[in-house]
């Protein structure tokens, strides 16, 4: 758990440095620490969604109004976003996504595997630049690369935090 603490704190610092004013989310277990840091920050807004694609609209709208926002979600939520990713792409609005992966290393739940394995190919098929991080120390650099490409270039960029970093959920099974 010490490793998870480390990457979440580092990513939070990079979020603050870039004056990202809000984070839209459907939560994931691996995002808990980061989302709690955001919720506790009085200068930031945590926007809980009903489905992840709302984030594409909210992030694009805030960019139109001059504010930076991003989306944090589990890989299964990526599947909900595909058509919606056309909005920031058409407007050349920055769309930064932080995705914690399921269906990879030691997944317990077979229902997660199809979307987990499909996350990167599907994102790339609709033009999203992917920044995978397979180890805890790779998460913050991947986030920095993705954030700067998104905000400076007007691209959609996704940081894919491996299940190796998060750890597989065991549901109490051996």
């Amino acid at each position, binding site marked *: 758990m010490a490793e998870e603490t480390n990457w979440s704190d580092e990513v939070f610092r990079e979020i603050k440095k870039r004056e990202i004013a809000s984070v839209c989310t459907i939560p994931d277990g691996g995002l808990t620490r980061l989302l709690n840091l955001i919720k506790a920050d009085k200068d930031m807004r945590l926007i809980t969604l009903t489905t992840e694609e709302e984030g594409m*609209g909210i992030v694009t709208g805030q*960019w139109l109004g*001059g504010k930076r926002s991003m989306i944090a979600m589990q890989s299964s939520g990526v599947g909900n976003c595909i058509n919606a990713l056309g909005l920031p792409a058409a407007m050349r609005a920055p769309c930064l996504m932080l995705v914690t992966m399921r269906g990879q290393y030691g997944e317990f739940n077979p229902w997660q595997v199809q979307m987990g394995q499909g996350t990167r190919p599907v994102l790339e098929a609709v033009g999203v630049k992917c920044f995978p991080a397979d180890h805890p120390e790779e998460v913050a650099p991947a986030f920095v690369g993705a954030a700067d490409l998104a905000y400076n270039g007007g691209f959609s960029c996704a940081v894919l935090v491996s299940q190796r970093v998060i750890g597989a959920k065991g549901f109490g099974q051996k």
Partner: protein
Amino acid sequence: MTVSNKINRRPFVAALLAQRQGALVIPGLGSPTWDCHAAGDSPEYLYSWGGMGLAVPTALGVALARPDRRVLALTGDGEMLMGIGSLGVVSAQGAKNLSILVLDNESFGETGRQTGLTSDTTDLCAIARGFGIQRTMHVTEQDKADELAAFLLKGDGPCFAVAKIGLSEDPWSLPVKDGAAIARRMRIALGIEAA
């Protein structure tokens, strides 16, 4: 065709927009976008050509970033239902400067007028109230445009209205399709980008 709504959308939207007093308008894809364009072009209209379901989330984003401006999402019944959960997000975020109007023709107008769910048992104003948006208005008459404009543009939001519009054969009124150009001119109008 079972739709018996009486409101004629083009003059109704034009009457409404004539009273917008600087409100930023986020029309959904299809007819709401054509209606805005037909009423007279403005850089303060964020035309849409896609992303069904995103008119309200996009309008919420603009409203959160610009609390000094009133923001009006102008959408249809099909798009509103596709993104219906976003009403819960609007309510939870307490966007006081956000207003939503659904132009409800009870049909998927753009794709051949297939019957939509609001023709039957679905009540959008009741759904909005269920999500916690207390101020709602249901409009069925053409001459209520002024009353509706006052409801949408004055007082604290978020507020939500449905106007029951008829099916009509309106001439195409197509804005520019380049999303980057549509976005850029709004950002220039808001003073965020240099012209």
